[in-house]
């Protein structure tokens, strides 16, 4: 009953989505309010049905109903409850259901809170959302149906991939999907604007917060995924330039560009066409990411299972939406009204530079992701594009971007004064140079570029602080006035500062971790001591333990420094009999922002065990940075005021440039 009702609810959602993709458009053409508002109620009903369907699947997993093939293949009756729930999206079918549920959630949100949108814009937006939804409902029902049944139910399930049996699965995919799918809203708005042939201030006012929401979730999702890989895979790596990681990084880069250009559009009515194009590109990259991960083009942990019909189906969806939207753009973009004007050196100009660098960086990642795939397919030649490629291409682009970041928020709208900004950033520059000097004198070894990169990170953080100091008038004004101005400062300004500082923080973490990490790899016997980065790590012994659905070998390490005992670390190796595979559970000891990391290898017959111990200085900054960025995003989102960019009045002969 639960299974079939869930299945039927999904089918009904498809039916509603089909109606939602046609009727409101007819209504918009006839300017009929009743037909247009069909979009709203169907979007809400769709959310209700997909939600019911998703809840049904969760219940089936929780009840271990092995008469459902999806549950049988991915669950086990002895699995802890939390993994029974997270296992719902720990497989292809379930994760696609989560994808459409989130899509329906966003559609429902637009329907519920879109009262202040022009009726026809809302109708168009929801219709486009329904196109996407219909395509994916069909995809799920036809090629990856989670509600298929087994007539003679087996008594036990096949269990979830052990690597996925972790709390990370509860957080990472939903966050990432909220990000991916969130960009569908700006996509729908862009298509709606192209279809209506006009793009007005209400458009920009709506797109920015939605983009911001998606961006916040995507940022957190990527950071979370990276931290999960770091502690679960047992190699201490946090980013592998794996195609699947790139698939999430590309929408992030394009989305970051979109966020900034949407800002220009809202505040200054400029960069309209560019914003539309970025909206399309960002969501296209999200779809591409879905295709790469879900089609089995790439075999990795993320691909769960591979099935060619799925790949072809998603490829069709991909071609339809990306090709369709881009040709619509090509046909209609010229008919859109051009926006405001600005001088090349101005806040707008700085944001254009930001957009340029981000899109080029995104293109680089796209190339690095697709080139090896194309080579393998066309020339039957296996190759991998890894860190060296990105260090040569992506890193310089980002260094340039980071160098420009502090200048952006300090330039005035419409026409800026680069020299004045440089003077005001002098303090930040000095701070970063001093840091470079100190780092150079203090540490030995590592790349000569590392201190420079740290200096760059400090410059970005100091630049963000300088911006706040300038705006509040700290130093030059009395303290009471400063406090008053700080309170009056829009939260979006604080958000900008936090997000930009987050970039610097992450950069420092990345540089420190990659340059000065130390590792110790050896086979250790009981009571043997390893010395690493000033810590003494002693192996106390090995124990066996029985978990709910696995057996576990635990190694107990005693960590001390200068003779003082610090902590006990217990990394372990779990073996899961049902899947006949094992996972390593690394043990982490956090000291400030640095971490000591122990993971286990294979045990030898004599009771010794292979051990990998890493000391990773300031590694946590890598993830604190994105958290800071997301916090900045939340601050900016909480700022409900309208965004107006007051232009700097022209003094001398103004020389204006067209916006696009």
């Amino acid at each position, binding site marked *: 009953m639960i299974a079939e009702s869930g299945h039927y609810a999904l089918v009904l959602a498809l039916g509603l989505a089909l109606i939602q993709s046609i009727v409101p458009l007819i209504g918009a053409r006839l300017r009929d309010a009743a037909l247009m508002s069909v979009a709203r109620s169907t979007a809400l009903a769709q959310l209700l049905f997909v939600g019911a369907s998703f809840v049904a699947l969760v219940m089936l997993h929780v009840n271990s109903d092995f008469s459902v093939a999806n549950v049988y293949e991915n669950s086990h009756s002895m699995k802890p409850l939390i993994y029974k729930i997270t296992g719902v999206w720990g497989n292809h079918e379930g994760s696609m259901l989560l994808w459409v549920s989130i899509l329906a959630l966003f559609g429902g949100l637009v329907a519920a809170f879109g009262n202040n*949108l022009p009726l026809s814009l809302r109708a168009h937006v929801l219709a486009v959302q329904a196109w996407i939804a219909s395509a994916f409902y069909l995809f799920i029902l036809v090629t990856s149906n989670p509600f298929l049944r087994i007539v003679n139910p087996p008594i036990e399930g096949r269990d979830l991939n052990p690597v996925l049996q972790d709390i990370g699965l509860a957080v990472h995919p939903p966050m990432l999907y909220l990000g991916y799918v969130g960009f569908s809203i700006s996509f729908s708005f862009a298509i709606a604007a192209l279809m209506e042939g006009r793009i007005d201030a209400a458009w920009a006012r709506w797109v920015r917060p939605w983009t911001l929401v998606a961006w916040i979730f995507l940022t957190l999702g990527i950071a979370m995924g990276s931290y999960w890989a770091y502690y679960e895979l047992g190699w201490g790596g946090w980013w592998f330039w794996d195609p699947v990681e790139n698939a999430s990084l590309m929408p992030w880069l394009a989305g970051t560009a979109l966020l900034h250009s949407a800002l220009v559009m809202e505040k200054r009515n400029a960069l309209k066409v560019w914003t539309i194009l970025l909206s399309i590109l960002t969501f296209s990259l999200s779809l591409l990411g879905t295709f790469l991960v879900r089609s089995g083009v790439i075999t990795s942990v993320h691909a769960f299972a591979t099935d060619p019909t799925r790949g072809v189906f998603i490829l069709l969806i991909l071609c339809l939406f990306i090709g369709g939207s881009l040709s619509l753009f090509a046909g209609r973009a010229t008919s859109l009204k051009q926006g405001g004007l600005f001088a090349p050196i101005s806040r707008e100009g700085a944001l254009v530079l930001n957009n340029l660098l981000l899109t080029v960086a995104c293109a680089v990642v796209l190339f690095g992701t697709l080139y090896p795939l194309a080579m393998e397919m066309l020339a039957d030649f296996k190759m991998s594009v890894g860190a060296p490629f990105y260090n040569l291409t992506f890193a310089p682009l980002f260094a340039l971007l980071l160098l420009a970041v502090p200048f952006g928020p300090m330039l005035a709208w419409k026409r800026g004064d680069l020299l004045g900004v440089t003077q005001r950033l002098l303090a930040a520059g000095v701070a970063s140079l001093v840091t470079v000097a100190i780092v150079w004198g203090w540490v030995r070894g590592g790349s000569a570029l590392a201190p420079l990169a740290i200096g760059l990170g400090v410059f970005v953080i100091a630049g963000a602080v300088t911006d706040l100091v300038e705006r509040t008038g700290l130093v030059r004004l009395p303290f009471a006035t400063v406090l008053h101005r700080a309170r009056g400062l829009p939260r979006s300004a604080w958000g900008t500062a936090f997000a930009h500082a987050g970039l610097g923080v992450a950069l420092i973490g990345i540089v420190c971790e990659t340059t000065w990490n130390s590792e110790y790899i050896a086979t250790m016997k009981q009571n043997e001591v390893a010395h690493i980065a000033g810590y003494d790590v002693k192996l106390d012994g090995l124990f066996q333990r029985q978990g709910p659905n696995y057996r576990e070998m635990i190694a107990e390490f005693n960590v001390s420094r200068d003779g003082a005992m610090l902590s006990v670390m217990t990394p372990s190796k779990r073996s899961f009999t049902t899947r006949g595979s094992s996972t390593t559970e690394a043990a982490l000891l956090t000291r400030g922002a640095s971490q000591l990391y122990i993971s286990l290898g294979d045990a030898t017959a004599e009771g010794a065990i292979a051990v990998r111990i890493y000391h990773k200085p300031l590694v946590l900054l890598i993830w604190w940075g994105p958290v800071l960025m997301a916090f900045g995003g939340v601050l900016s989102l909480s700022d409900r005021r309208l965004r*107006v960019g007051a232009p700097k009045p022209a003094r001398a002969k103004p020389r204006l440039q067209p916006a696009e």
Partner: protein
Amino acid sequence: MTLWFVFALMTVAAIFAVLWPLGRSGRTQDQGSQNQGSEVAVYKDQLAEIERDLAAGLIAAPEAEAARVEISRRLLAAAGSESSLELKSDLAPSLKWRRAAAVLALVGLPFVAIGVYMPLGSPRLQDFPLAQRDRGAGSGMARSLENLVVQVEQHLEKNPTDGRGWNVLAPVLQRLGRFDDAVRAYRNSLTYNGESPERRSDLGEAISAAAGGVVTAEAKAEFERAHALDADDPKANYFLGLAAEQDGRKDDAANIWRALLAKAPADAPWRPLVQSSLARVGGGTMPALSDETIAASKDMAEGDRNAMVRGMVERLATRLKQNGNDVEGWLRLVRAYLVMGDRDKAMGASTDARQAVAKDAERLRQLNEGLKTLGLDG
């Protein structure tokens, strides 16, 4: 029946979601919300925002003035274009379309829903949650061999040191064709029950079954250990002979099997198998039995043996189709076809083999040499 009732309710709810806004028609059309979302409203709000920023001291007066001028200019333009849009909102001609939409919801939606659901769904199947199944397990529920195996596996998961359990499980897994699992079960059985020639040779059998009937080096090692523990262990001896045959040492194989038969009790059930194997490698028949018995057992075993050999050969062929790099495997396959008297297939296999390893000069050379010794030249 309740299921269909639930379906009907859901369908009605979905239809209602489409009909509701249509029924409200244009009369409740919210003029307020229409205006609120318009461009003009946004610009008006922006103007108010500038005043607030100016009062808070966030922007200076000249900047505020410039912004006001810009926004006012846009406001005027927007007001112009919007009034021209308002004029078009005429409700009368769309009544026809509203009816069409209503019909679409009333007829199309249930039609699509049933049309998609019926081929995919299984409305007759009940839910089978774990709790309910445990109760029903003793009575009506089909307790197939697989389910019993799963229960034993669950038991062993909790008590992995139960040697007797592994002993029971391993041959069942072997029979079910889950050879890899059987290998693990036999290994566990050896660990917890201790060494015995039978377990060693059972393990070896499972390993070679997992390898598609090929006595691999790993399997051979197990048989040799069993042989060392008990020189008369029949299974170990048989498979050592098979290994010798698969390596092409037919005389060794014949010797091993002849010795095995000599020591074997007359009523041993595996006698016919060994005899037919011996016949295959060209060893003499055994005179100890009457001609009739030999004929009977030979007939009986012939079918079994052929089926077994053919199965092995087919497995090997499919494995090679997936992974053609294994020169040894190809040679074994060609040899098998020759032994079975199927020269055409042998020629076909050798052509396939040449194609599969064509890229690797070293392998190709090995293959050609091997084929030469088999008498298949070019």
